[in-house]
């Protein structure tokens, strides 16, 4: 009896000493956390390394990490964070050039976390923001169809305005401001091409140039014509849109998980769009991580076909690495994927630039939405505040 007890104690101690663990910090909670857990499990099973997952939003980390880095400490081994933060702090991050199989990625995807030729982070899965969602049943009932040209799009909006019970054709989501910025970016990419978005991110083009002004004027024109609703808390207006107060709603891929009947969902991009924003989650390993080797294994896993396949199976995510088979996705996702097939994935504008500019961008768009005639001053503000 005594011997068994002793043995158990020794075994427990031994396993505690041998068991390796890492701490992963990400922003996901609730449903999103649930869909991330299978990935962590798959990693644990594969490597035997235990993962402690902690929730911390990027904007809070931005306040805590600099002080921690100065004290040569880190709150976790792998941290999901804004790419601009990672590239601003390469001296505090582990270089991952040898860990990540860069050949699997579109070069543009990893460029956001590179300093020179060195890679300081990795790209996890992406959430595309494909376009305007509508209810198929609503379109059928009123004999509407997806537009193929800009004129058809405007005609569609006009037609929707005439439908009784409709408050405005397009619902505008509010909150801190990202739903408005998603629509705006879609206009920039459609009428300026994916390269315009990249130029804006890199700061190669002025917000006041005519190349930017043209798509922004198209947007402002629709706003002025009253086709968009007043910005309303985005989950509130989602319900109002679903019950028929509005016909169209611009939103990311995750809307599939938020409605009662995903099979009733249809989506179209602005006619002529060559790219769609696909916001990618990035992660890095701080130089002061307790378990750098374990962290590297985790980075390797989430940058592999194997790891990303587990995530996309949960729905709402797209793989950033090549080679994830189509049947890894749930059926609803596959249908959306087909609607944006052949479109170039583009980085998220405000997430990539980040910082104080991002808040200013959101704030200015809220202004534009209610006062579209002030477009010039909005563009001037945005240019003046670029980092």
């Amino acid at each position: 009896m005594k011997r068994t007890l002793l043995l158990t104690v020794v075994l427990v101690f031994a396993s505690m000493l041998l068991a390796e663990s890492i701490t992963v910090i990400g922003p996901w909670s609730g449903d999103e956390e649930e869909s991330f857990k299978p990935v962590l499990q798959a990693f644990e099973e594969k490597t035997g390394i235990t993962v402690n997952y902690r929730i911390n939003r990027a904007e809070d980390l931005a306040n805590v990490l600099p002080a921690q880095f100065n004290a040569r400490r880190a709150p976790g081994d792998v941290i999901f964070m804004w790419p601009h933060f990672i590239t601003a702090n390469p001296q505090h991050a582990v270089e991952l050039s040898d860990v990540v199989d860069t050949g699997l990625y579109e070069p543009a995807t990893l460029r956001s976390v590179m300093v020179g030729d060195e890679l300081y982070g990795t790209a996890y899965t992406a959430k595309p923001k494909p376009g305007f969602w509508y209810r198929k049943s609503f379109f059928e009932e009123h004999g509407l169809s997806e537009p193929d040209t800009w004129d058809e799009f405007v005609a569609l909006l006009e037609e929707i305005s005439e439908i009784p019970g409709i408050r405005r054709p397009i619902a505008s989501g509010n909150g801190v401001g990202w739903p408005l910025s998603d629509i705006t970016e879609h206009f920039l990419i459609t009428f300026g091409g994916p390269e315009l978005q990249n130029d804006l991110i890199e700061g190669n083009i002025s917000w006041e140039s005519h190349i930017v002004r043209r798509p922004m004027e198209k947007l402002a024109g629709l706003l002025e014509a009253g086709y968009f609703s007043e910005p309303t808390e985005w989950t509130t207006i989602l319900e109002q849109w679903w019950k028929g107060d509005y016909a169209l709603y611009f939103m990311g891929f995750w809307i599939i998980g938020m409605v009662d009947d995903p099979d009733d969902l249809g989506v179209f991009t602005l006619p002529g769009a060559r790219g769609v924003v696909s916001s990618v989650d990035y992660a890095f390993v701080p130089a002061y991580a307790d378990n750098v080797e374990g962290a590297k294994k985790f980075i390797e896993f989430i940058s592999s076909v194997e790891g990303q396949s587990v995530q996309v199976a949960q729905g709402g995510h797209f793989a950033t690495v090549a080679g994830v088979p189509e049947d890894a996705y749930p059926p609803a996702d596959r249908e959306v994927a087909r609607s944006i097939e052949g479109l170039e994935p583009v980085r998220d504008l405000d997430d990539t630039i980040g910082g104080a500019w991002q808040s200013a961008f959101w704030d200015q768009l809220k202004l534009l939405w209610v006062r579209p005639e002030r477009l010039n001053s909005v563009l001037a503000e945005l240019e003046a505040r670029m980092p």
Partner: protein
Amino acid sequence: MLRRARLYHFGIFILPALTLMAIFVMYPTLRTVFLSFIGEDGSFTLSNYTEVLRSRDIFNPGGYEGEFPFGALIHNAMWIAIHLPITTFLGLFLATFLRNVKGGGIIKSIIFLGMVMPMIVGGIMIRFMFDGSVGVVNMVMGFFGMHTQTWTAYPETALFSLIFGSVWLWAGFSMILYSAGLETIPNMYYEAARIDGASRIKMFFKITIPLLKPITVVVVTMTLLWELKIFDIVYVATMGGPGGSSNVLALQMYLYGFREWNAEKAAVVAVLITLFTLVAAIPLIRSAGDEAE
């Protein structure tokens, strides 16, 4: 001998409190003043001040073609210009009026509720009041067939929504102080005036208001301090938007200091707010100084 006793008393009574204050209040204050004069190269400079005062976030008197935003400094000034007289007079009115109302104490408690709740909740309340679909302001305006909208979402109305909402929050303060003040006025003054045939209104202006003057000084001072430090309400209701139309100094300080990580610019804004609060607090400081003689 006496000197030693003084030092001893100072040591045991004052020093513990003073030490904490010195580390966490006085040193940071002086450090902020210092930071506001430090340039990028570490030398003494006034350029932080010129930069901040020239920034449209702070001072933009022309606005956008005469419309909002006018800059945080002017927004704070507008807050004072509107909120200070309204809350002061409203408080005085409520205190006087509710004295003659049955159950006035309960009504006073209701009005004072705004003072008791955390300002962050106050901000949520204001945002809620002025909301397009669930707001009570729109309920009333809709009832009279007037235009309804989310008032905090528009540049012309965002700041005014916050200001009027904060009247709702703060009126209880002056009301309570004036109520307490009214209790101290001896009834015989009014009796005497009544015998002389003075009207109620005349008594109010000739007796009540002059006797409440010390209270008014306190109400005005404390209200000014509150208006200059306003932060939570704006943070949670509009975050200074849209397009900076409801920005205020305290929020801009936070944005400079903890979003842009520009300690020097943040320090300048903090020093500006402090200068204003010190001016506002002069009556308070003077009376405390006289009294300590």
